[in-house]
C-alpha cells in the first residue's frame, strides 16, 4: 500500500484514549511536537501560579471535541459512571479548597475576578458537557433501533445521560450568576437597580424571541441524524444484497442448463438470506444442538446440491454427547445422499428434558438390512458405533422399496 503523505494537519482533538484527566494534553501534544508529560507539567505549574493553568485547561477541555477512541480518561474510568454527581461535587470542593489556599497564600488575582470566573467556567462546562452528551447518545439509540434492539448482546454501550433540561438550566443559571457576582463585586450593580432590571428584561425577551429558531434548529438536527442513519442502513442492505444475491443470480443465469445446480444455488441463497433477515429478530443462539444440526445440514446441502429438510423441536446445549449425535446425523444424511440420490431427505430432531432424538428419513429405494455383507458395514460402524460409544443408541429401519429411516437417541 502506498502511504500518502499527511499534507493536512489532523483536526485538533482531545485524546481520550491516552488521557489522565480530560485528554487535553494528550491531544495537544502531537500538534505541538511535545511529549504530553511536558504539557501536563506546564499546565500544573501555570495552575499553581495564580490559577491560570487550571482555567486554561478547562477552556481547552470544553472547546476541543473528544476523539481518539472510546476509552475514558484514567480518572473517569477509575471512578465509574454511577457516582458522577458525587464525583462532580468532590472535585468542585477540591478546586474550592485549592483556590482558597491560593487566596491565603496571596497568589491571588483578586476576588472580583476569580470567583465570577470560577462560576462562569463551571456553568459553561456543564452546558457544553450536556451538548456533547447529545452527540454520543445517537450511536446508542441507533443500536436500539436495529431489529432486535440489541437486547441480550453483551456489548457495553457507552451511555451518557440524555441532555437534561435541568442540568442545562443549572449551567445557564451559574453563568448568569457569575456575571451578576462580577458586576456586584465591582460595584456596578448597587447604584442602578433599574439598569439590572432592564438588562434582565432584555435578556428574557431575547430568549423568548430566539427560542423558536433554536427549537427548529435542534429538530432539524434530529431529522438529519435520522436520515443519515437510514441512509447508512440502506447502504448496508445494498452491500449485502450485492455481495450475495446478485452474485447468485448471475451464477444461476450462467448455469441455467443444469437445473439441479440452479436449484441448489437457489436453495443455498434462500437459506443465507433467511438467516441474514432473521439474524436480528430471533434471539441469538450460541452453541446449541439445533444450531449445530442446522450448520451440518447446510454444509451437506451445499456440498452435494441435495435439499435436506430439517425440523427441530426443543434444544439443548452442545456438549460432547450432543456433538457425537450431530456427527452421527451427518453420517446418516451423507449415507442417504449416497444411496438415495434423487429422494427427499428429511431430518427431524426433538429434544425433551435433555433427551435428544433425531430421525433421518429418505424416500429412496431402501435396502435389506440382513443382506448387507459384513465388510460393507459403513453405516453401521459410523453411526451405530459412534452412538453407542457415547451412551446413546441407534436403529435403522428400512425395507426394499420403502425408504430408510435412521433413528438416533441420545440420553440427557
Amino acid at each position: 500500500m502506498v502511504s500518502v503523505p499527511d499534507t493536512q494537519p489532523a483536526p485538533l482533538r482531545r485524546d481520550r484514549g491516552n488521557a489522565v484527566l480530560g485528554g487535553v494534553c494528550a491531544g495537544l501534544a502531537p500538534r505541538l511536537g511535545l511529549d504530553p508529560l511536558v504539557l501536563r507539567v506546564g499546565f500544573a505549574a501555570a495552575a499553581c501560579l495564580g490559577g491560570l493553568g487550571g482555567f486554561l485547561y478547562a477552556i481547552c477541555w470544553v472547546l476541543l471535541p473528544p476523539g481518539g477512541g472510546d476509552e475514558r480518561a484514567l480518572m473517569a474510568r477509575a471512578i465509574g459512571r454511577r457516582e458522577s454527581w458525587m464525583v462532580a461535587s468532590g472535585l468542585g470542593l477540591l478546586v474550592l479548597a485549592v483556590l482558597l489556599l491560593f487566596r491565603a497564600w496571596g497568589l491571588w488575582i483578586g476576588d472580583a475576578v476569580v470567583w465570577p470566573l470560577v462560576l462562569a467556567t463551571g456553568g459553561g462546562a456543564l452546558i457544553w458537557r450536556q451538548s456533547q452528551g447529545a452527540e454520543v447518545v445517537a450511536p446508542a439509540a441507533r443500536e436500539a433501533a436495529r431489529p432486535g434492539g440489541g437486547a441480550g448482546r453483551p456489548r457495553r454501550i457507552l451511555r451518557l445521560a440524555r441532555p437534561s433540561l435541568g442540568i442545562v438550566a443549572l449551567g445557564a443559571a451559574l453563568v448568569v450568576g457569575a456575571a451578576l457576582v462580577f458586576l456586584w463585586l465591582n460595584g456596578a450593580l448597587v447604584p442602578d437597580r433599574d439598569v439590572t432590571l432592564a438588562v434582565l428584561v432584555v435578556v428574557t425577551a431575547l430568549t423568548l424571541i430566539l427560542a423558536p429558531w433554536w427549537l427548529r434548529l435542534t429538530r432539524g438536527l434530529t431529522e438529519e441524524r435520522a436520515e443519515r442513519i437510514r441512509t447508512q442502513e440502506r447502504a448496508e442492505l445494498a452491500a449485502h444484497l450485492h455481495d450475495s444475491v446478485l452474485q447468485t443470480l448471475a451464477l444461476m443465469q450462467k448455469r441455467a442448463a443444469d437445473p439441479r445446480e440452479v436449484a441448489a444455488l437457489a436453495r443455498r441463497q434462500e437459506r443465507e438470506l433467511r438467516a441474514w433477515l432473521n439474524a436480528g429478530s430471533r434471539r441469538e443462539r450460541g452453541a446449541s444442538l439445533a444450531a449445530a444440526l442446522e450448520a451440518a445440514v447446510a454444509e451437506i446441502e451445499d456440498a452435494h446440491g441435495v435439499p435436506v429438510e430439517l425440523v427441530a423441536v426443543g434444544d439443548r446445549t452442545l456438549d460432547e454427547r450432543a456433538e457425537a449425535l450431530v456427527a452421527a446425523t451427518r453420517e446418516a444424511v451423507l449415507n442417504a445422499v449416497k444411496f438415495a440420490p434423487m429422494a427427499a431427505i428429511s431430518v427431524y430432531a426433538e429434544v425433551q428434558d435433555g433427551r435428544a432424538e433425531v430421525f433421518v428419513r429418505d424416500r429412496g429405494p431402501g435396502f435389506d438390512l440382513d443382506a448387507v455383507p459384513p465388510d460393507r458395514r459403513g453405516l453401521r460402524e459410523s453411526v451405530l458405533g459412534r452412538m453407542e460409544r457415547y451412551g446413546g443408541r441407534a436403529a435403522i429401519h428400512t425395507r426394499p422399496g420403502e425408504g430408510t429411516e435412521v433413528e438416533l437417541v441420545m440420553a440427557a
Partner: protein
Amino acid sequence: MLVDDHGLFRAGVRAELDGLVDVVGDAGAVDEAIDCIVERDPDVVLLDVQMPEGGGAEVIRGVAPRRPAVRFLALSVSDAPEDVISIIRAGARGYVTKTISGPELADAVRRVASGDAVFSPRLAGFVLDAFAGQEEAAPAVADPELDQLTAREREVLRHIARGYLYKEIALRLGISAKTVEAHVSAVLRKLQLSNRHELSRWAVQRGWVE
C-alpha cells in the same frame, strides 16, 4: 382460487395446477381478493400470507362472515413461526411453503377441500414446540382439553414432522387414515381456538408476538 401479490407466481401456480385442480380465478390484493371470493365462492383459496394491507389474515377475516364455507390453504415463502401461527389462528386450515411441487400442492388442495388439515413438517414442529412445556401447566386452566395435546395427537404430529404421509402414519400406528386426519384436525382446532396463555407466552417468549 389464488390470492398472491406476485403476479409471476400466480401464473406459475396456475400452470402447475392446470389439469389437476380447477382454478376459478386469482387476485392480487386484499380487497380484490375478498370481493372475488365472495363472488365466485370457490372451495379452496390458496392464500399468500404476506401481502400489503394486512396480508392473508385480513382476507380470511373479510371473507369469513360472508362465505363461512370457504377453506383457506396458506402458501408462503416464509416459514417463520410468526407468519405460520398468525395465519393458522386467523382460520387457515393448512400451511405449505412455496417450494412445494405441483402434484403435492394439488393433493394438499384436495385434502383441504374435503375438510382435512394440511400440516407441513415444519408446522408440525412448531406446534409440538408450542405445546411442549405442557406437563407442568398451571392448575387453573380454563379448558384442559384445548390447552394440551393428547399423546396420540402428539405421536401423529411427530410422524408428520418426520416426513411421513398420512397413509404411512396410519400403517405405523395401526389406525385408519381417517383417524389420522381426525387427529390432525383436532390439533388444528386447538391451535385456532385456544387463545390461551401458553401459546401466547410461547410466542412472546420467542419475541414473535408482542
